[in-house]
């Protein structure tokens, strides 16, 4: 085994009573790609934040390159040659690539010399690692994949030998992700060490040499990737056997419950977000919309739910037209049998400071069952909430608890329970399992299949291609606001991925 690039010994970190990292021992050999996998909340990000100096461990030691090191701030980590690429990019959007790369490492009061130095250094990095980016391009004009490359360049420019990537593929197409993996391998060949944090098993198998699994704050196992299987890793992550495949029967499509014709949506700046989209969803089927985040799926969903105004187009809900260009109110649509599980449960689907029971009526708070005249019928609301908590196994089972104190999976269950228990005709669902742990994913998928089997029309938007492929009876692919194709169900991930990348931008992605 090569010498260790990073060695963590007995790391402990608590937030109040929450033990986020328990006695973590981790050795990352130099010149390898090391995966860290675990559910949301397993403590992966906390561990890496300790390594990068955002947090200080309560106890434990950090060794970098064989030397014991104290890392109190990101600047210490950078000085040790550790670089981090965050899940949410830390770039200045209206700066050029070059300006972003030297940001914080300008060196001198006058930029001229440092810019020139940076430019030649950047050229060298691009040559050595195949990280081509135009140094004079403005960040906001670059596709996400390239923005991520700038983040990597930033880290390398600061002399990083160890690169930590936090959930790097969440925003990428499969092709862009593949390209990222090629870059990571090249970095490895040049002697760099890469730590890859992810919750996607597929990525671990594709690119890592070793993998460590975290569960509930503990590091439960470290394996050589070649010697393990997806099933074993999933079991280690969750602590029990998990059904990775969704079991479902054939769809029995019925009436057309939701029809969308030539729908066009513009955002507040007048940019076309949804461009002439048409499709149908029938009773008893799940139609999945695949696509890289930011290609109009969110806008499509919000428009159908009545939250956003359409520019033009016709929508029919259960045989009757809906005027989405005028003032179709989300409340009216709800009364007509449209339930909506929004993509963003934190700011839209839930009011986090509310008690759980208050959220269980959001959007349905005008229902006479919850009211006594103008007053809220608190007893009815709470007993209703308790029923849902039991039925959907929401934990902790306390309808008076602040919603913010529930885990992501349980928060999502609160939304699902609210929307599904109203017995809607059409259910539109955005990113149902984003930030949700594996155990809850299984539950949510099963509920969605149940809804389908009860004869509901389900429209599912997800950036997780695996999820779309597992659940959807028909798949539509959106790119740049348009539906660019309806691949057959047996289409491979690669074929769908090409559609997701858009034919024209294929070269850029490659």
């Amino acid at each position: 085994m090569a010498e260790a690039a990073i060695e963590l010994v007995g790391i402990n970190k608590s937030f109040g009573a929450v033990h986020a990292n328990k006695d973590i021992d981790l050795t990352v050999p130099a010149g390898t790609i090391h995966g860290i996998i675990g559910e949301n909340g397993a403590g992966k990000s906390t561990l890496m934040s300790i390594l990068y100096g955002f947090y200080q461990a309560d106890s434990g030691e950090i060794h970098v390159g064989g030397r014991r090191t104290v890392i109190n701030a990101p600047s210490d980590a950078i000085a040790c040659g550790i670089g981090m690429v965050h899940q949410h990019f830390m770039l200045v959007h209206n700066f050029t690539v070059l300006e972003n790369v030297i940001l914080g490492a300008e060196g001198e009061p006058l930029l001229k010399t440092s810019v020139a130095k940076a430019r030649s250094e950047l050229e060298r990095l691009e040559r050595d690692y195949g990280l081509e980016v135009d140094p004079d391009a403005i960040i906001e004009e670059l596709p996400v994949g390239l923005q991520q490359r700038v983040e990597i360049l930033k880290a390398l420019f600061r002399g990083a030998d160890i690169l930590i990537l936090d959930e790097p593929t969440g925003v990428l197409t499969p092709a862009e992700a593949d390209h990222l993996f090629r870059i990571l391998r090249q970095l490895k060949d040049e002697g760099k060490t890469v730590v890859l944090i992810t919750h996607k098993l597929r990525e671990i198998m594709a690119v890592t040499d070793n993998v460590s699994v975290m569960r509930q704050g503990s590091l439960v196992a470290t394996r050589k990737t070649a010697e393990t299987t997806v099933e074993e890793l999933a079991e280690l992550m969750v602590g029990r056997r998990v059904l990775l495949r969704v079991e479902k029967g054939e769809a029995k499509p019925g009436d057309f419950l939701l029809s969308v014709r030539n729908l066009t949506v513009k955002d507040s700046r007048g940019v076309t977000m949804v461009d002439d989209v048409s499709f149908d969803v029938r009773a008893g089927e799940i139609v999945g919309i695949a696509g890289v985040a930011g290609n109009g799926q969110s806008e499509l969903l919000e428009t159908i739910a009545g939250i956003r105004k359409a520019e033009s187009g016709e929508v029919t809900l259960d045989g009757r037209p809906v005027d989405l260009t005028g003032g179709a109110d989300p409340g009216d649509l709800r009364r007509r049998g449209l339930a909506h599980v929004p993509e963003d449960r934190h700011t839209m689907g839930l009011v986090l400071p509310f008690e759980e029971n208050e959220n269980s009526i959001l959007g349905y708070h005008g229902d006479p069952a919850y009211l006594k005249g103008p007053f809220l019928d608190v007893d009815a609301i709470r007993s209703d909430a308790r029923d849902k908590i039991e039925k959907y196994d929401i934990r902790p089972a306390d309808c008076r608890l602040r919603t913010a104190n529930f885990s992501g999976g349980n928060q999502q269950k609160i939304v699902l329970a609210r929307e599904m228990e109203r017995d809607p005709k059409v259910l539109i669902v955005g990113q149902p399992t984003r930030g949700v742990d594996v155990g809850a994913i299984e539950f949510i998928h099963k509920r969605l299949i149940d809804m389908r089997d009860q004869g509901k029309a389900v429209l599912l938007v997800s950036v997780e291609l695996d999820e779309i492929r597992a659940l959807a009876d028909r798949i539509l692919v959106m790119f740049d606001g348009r539906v660019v194709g309806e691949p057959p169900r047996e289409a491979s991930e690669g074929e769908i991925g090409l559609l997701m990348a858009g034919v024209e931008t294929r070269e850029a992605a490659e």
Partner: protein
Amino acid sequence: MSGPYARLPGWADYGLIPIINLLVAFAVAGLVVLLVGENPLRAAVILVEGAFVGGQNIAYTLYYATSFIFTGLAVAVAFHCRLFNIGGEGQAYVGGLGVALVCLSFDALFPWWINFPLAILGAAAFGALWALIPAYLQARRGSHVVITTIMFNFIAASLMVYLLVDVLKPPGSMAPQTRTFLEGGQLPKLNWLIEAFGLSVRSAPFNISFLLALLAAFGVWVLIWRTRLGYEIRTQGHSARAARYAGIGQARIIIVAMTVSGALAGMMALNPVMGDQHRLQLDFVTGAGFVGIAVALMGRSHPAGIVPAAVLFGMLYQGGAELAFEMPNISRDMIVIIQGLVILFAGALENMFRPYLQTVFASLRPRSAGLAEDRAGGA
């Protein structure tokens, strides 16, 4: 990364933190007193005694508190909709016009107990009207309510000067004020309530609108936490996106919340105009609209917090007046400094000590924070 969230028990959140903030504010105020060469401990004693010892002082403290309860509730209702109504001053001022018009019209006709409800309506309607225009501009035009309500304070001031000098002033009078209301326009005093405790009140303006203020506090609690409208206001206040998602008309809810807020601010005028001075005077609001902001901040926008916070500020007003009288070195402006410090620590720096306290509580009683276990280290 989201920070760790350790929950404080309710009594610490709503009791301990305000008290700590208050003590720090007084400590810093004490330094200021020291600086002008007076003994801060003696000053504190004078302040507290001036507010709470003797029926007379208590009556004055509660009289001031009455005004602050109304304006504090007004700010709080708007806060729940995430609107910062800085216009309580102007709304109360114009509310006074509503009170005066009712009293001037009916004081010879009806007894006070008929005029009182009418005056309440007048005060609320005029206050609401004065909030309605900024509310409309915010809801439909996106003009920020902070800016517009501030400007409306100035407009109210100018309007009232005009009305009092040119329209409402009785002919031949030199003072810019209306005639004195007859008995039908005067609210009964509540001094007997204090005398019932065996304390004596010489003459104090403490009047029946105090009871109305308490009633309004309860009403606000019901409105915010027990009605559909309050639910919608809170939803809009916490997350405009969630409100949109829930089908809550945003323009409507903004206008309604601001109108209720303005009505409550307007009702403040009942206390000085109908309860004390029995005429409409220039500048009768004397900053109560702004104190309402501090009261709402300190009371955490909850009626159960606003009432004690209003009493606290009533104490600062009344005790401060005594202090300025007893200690010539401490001018009225010094009292404003002390009030400012209370506002600074109780309002603006409200969260200063919270993290430390959370750490202390988390280490003392691990289970009080245990519910957040799934959130550790989440993105």
